[in-house]
């Protein structure tokens, strides 16, 4: 139907296995009935990821992991997006191995536990506050329930600090999430909760976050793909005015645009996965994938009509998940700005250099 749209980044067997396993555990029906992701699903999904060896996929073999690369991870993450996996997978399985060496002995231990599946990272996405007793209060933490550790990125003058807290002794309160597949909580940490802190310059932070941008893009493609397939199936069945609505041009053109966006996103994301060190490739892939997912998941609701707006039709889960990833780690707009600024500055700098050289040449002649 959608031509090579599930082509693997690394290995089709791995990809298909991930798709099957995750489809069996997919939370759509239960969430649509009103279930809460923060409880049973998050636990089950994490256990599944550990059993499959996915949590240790990028952990070196010396630490009990599989020592595989970004492409293999991408195959799993795309299916996690498509099947609404509930858990902080990319952050734990990908960012942690990258950061571990900076965390010293703490990092070593974390990697071993990650490979076993016993480490799960919550991520603090809003600025912390300190209370009167000097305890750190994190107002918004993703996947706090069940997380032994919480990671917080602090953007500062001249760089980024990655701060790792342990949750032992913390008090947390579950909050209502916009995205039901991503539980959130406010957490007040114990006084000695900070166990590691790494400060990086902007370039180093950018490099550490590159795989996260790439995998966020990959996950967005998975979400977009699932929503798109759902919409196509629906318009082929739903009848109005005595016709299948997929026969109407207004519907066709909306889906044609979705197909076009999805094909751009797939290409950009594959390219970024294959060139994991390239800043432009990673940032642009995330921008293009977010644009595609935002449009396609909204269209999926629109094409389902009145039932698309109901909680019990699962179309809204894709929109909400896409919206969350669109905003995560500084947001897509900031990445577009950085990529655009680099392009503009590189061009104007080369022009200046050329002019300077031309001027120098003239002086020699004189």
């Amino acid at each position: 139907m959608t031509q090579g749209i599930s082509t693997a980044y690394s290995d089709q067997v791995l990809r298909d296995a991930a798709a099957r396993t995750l489809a069996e555990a997919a939370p759509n029906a239960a969430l649509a009935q009103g279930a809460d992701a923060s409880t049973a699903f998050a636990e089950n999904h994490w256990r599944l990821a550990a059993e499959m060896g996915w949590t240790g996929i990028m952990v070196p073999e010396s630490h009990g992991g599989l020592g595989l690369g970004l492409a293999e991870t991408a195959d799993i993450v795309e299916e996690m997006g498509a099947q609404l996996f509930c858990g902080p997978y990319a952050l734990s399985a990908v960012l942690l191995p990258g950061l571990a060496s900076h965390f010293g002995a703490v990092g070593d231990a974390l990697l071993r536990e990650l490979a076993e599946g016993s480490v799960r990272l919550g991520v603090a996405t809003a600025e912390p506050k300190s209370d009167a007793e000097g305890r750190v209060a994190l107002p918004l933490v993703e996947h706090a329930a069940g997380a032994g550790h919480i990671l917080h990125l602090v953007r500062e003058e001249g760089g980024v600090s990655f701060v790792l807290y342990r949750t032992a002794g913390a008090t947390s309160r579950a909050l209502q999430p916009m995205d039901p597949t991503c539980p959130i909580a406010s957490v007040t940490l114990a006084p000695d909760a900070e166990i590691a802190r790494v400060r990086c310059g902007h370039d180093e932070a950018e490099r550490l976050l590159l795989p996260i941008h790439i995998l966020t893009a990959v996950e967005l493609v998975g979400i977009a793909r699932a929503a798109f397939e759902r919409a196509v199936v629906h318009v082929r069945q739903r009848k109005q005015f005595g016709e299948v609505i997929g026969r109407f041009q207004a519907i066709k053109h909306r889906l044609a645009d979705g197909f076009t966006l999805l094909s751009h996103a797939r290409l950009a994301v594959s390219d970024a996965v294959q060139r994991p060190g390239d800043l432009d490739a990673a940032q642009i892939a995330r921008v293009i994938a977010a644009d595609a997912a935002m449009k396609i998941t909204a269209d999926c609701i629109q094409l389902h009509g009145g039932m698309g707006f109901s909680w019990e039709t699962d179309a809204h889960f894709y929109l909400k998940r896409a919206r969350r990833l669109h905003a995560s780690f500084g947001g897509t707009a900031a990445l577009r700005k950085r990529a655009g600024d680099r392009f503009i500055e590189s061009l104007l700098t080369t022009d200046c250099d050329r002019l300077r050289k031309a001027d120098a040449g003239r002086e020699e002649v004189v």
Partner: protein
Amino acid sequence: MNALSAKTASSPAAILAASTDEAFRAGIKAWFAQELPRLAGDRYRAAEMQRLAFRREWEDHVCRSGLSGLGWSEAVGGRPLSLTRQAIYHQEYARAKAPLAVNLIGHGIVGPTLIAFGSQEQKDRFIPKLLSNEEIWCQGYSEPNSGSDLASLATRAERRGDVYVLNGQKIWTSFSHLGDWCFLLARTSSEGPRQRGISVFLVDMRLPGIRVRPIRQITGEADYGEVFFDDVEVPVACRLGEENAGWGIAMAAANFERGTYFIPRIVRLQTELEDLVRLAATTERDGRPVIHDPLVRDAIARLFCDAHALRLHADRMLKQAEEGVPPGVEGSAVKLLWSETHQRLFDLAMDIMGPAFQYGPQEKLAPAEGLWHRDYLWTRAETILAGTSEIQRNIIAERGLELPR
């Protein structure tokens, strides 16, 4: 560096025979860098080189230097060249800012179609004059009442002995006023499905009964026109393929360029985007360069992202063509992205212009002698020609997503 100290570029024959793709690229790049300014002389400016007379002069020079028929077999006098090298050729052509060719239909569509479907006699007659660019081709497809619905075309060709008698009208025919020959679709039967009553004819534009009326475009130029056929007698030998088999030939012809069609356009878009940044850096508004406007920067960043996606599509389509994978609906997706991105690019250029927007496209006082203005208007054609955006979306939905017709 002055012209005297520059190294002389190798001959086209030597360049084509380069042992590696890198050497081929370097060679062809040097050739364009040498020949284009040499031929243009004091016309070596973007606006001047876009004039039709120079475009023809340059195309004749390229063809007669031995750089035509790239990828065609030696049997027809062509120069066999891998798709990768054809792509490199088109990339460097666009990077050199060489002007668009005039005989695009001839080299891109008629040549490959003749090689695939033509009789030996037809190949012998037409291919050499294509290679030397002595004959310019136009394409007689659209009619006043048959635009997107091409199969409804009504121009009739009636067989009478050794000739077909042609009656009807074509419209929006690019280069009809320059065309020596026309690659024409006409109805040879009104029975059965509409697509099975169409034949292809190679029509000499100087035959009695043919009248061309140029149509002025929104750019003010008249590069296309109407063609009237009034009892025009076309020899039977000028029918391409079997009678009533024209639709299949027309569809195949549309596919010939698929692998490399977008490459020059996408490279051109990239260089235009770079020029746009320079335009914004040198245009001032309220005492400061427009490039500092955050809205302009964001629009540029969006175009940069789309240009990136286009480049990846071009690479992939080329790779597929080389592997012999038949083109799918991806071509339609790329056409949509390319044409719509290109329009946005020139819309932004007009925004950057500010009051200078008001200059007409032929006004020499306009920035870049009106080239931005001209191309801004020209991009409106790109969502219409070669299958409108609406038709592309239908193709994606019906062939790609298998939605009911």
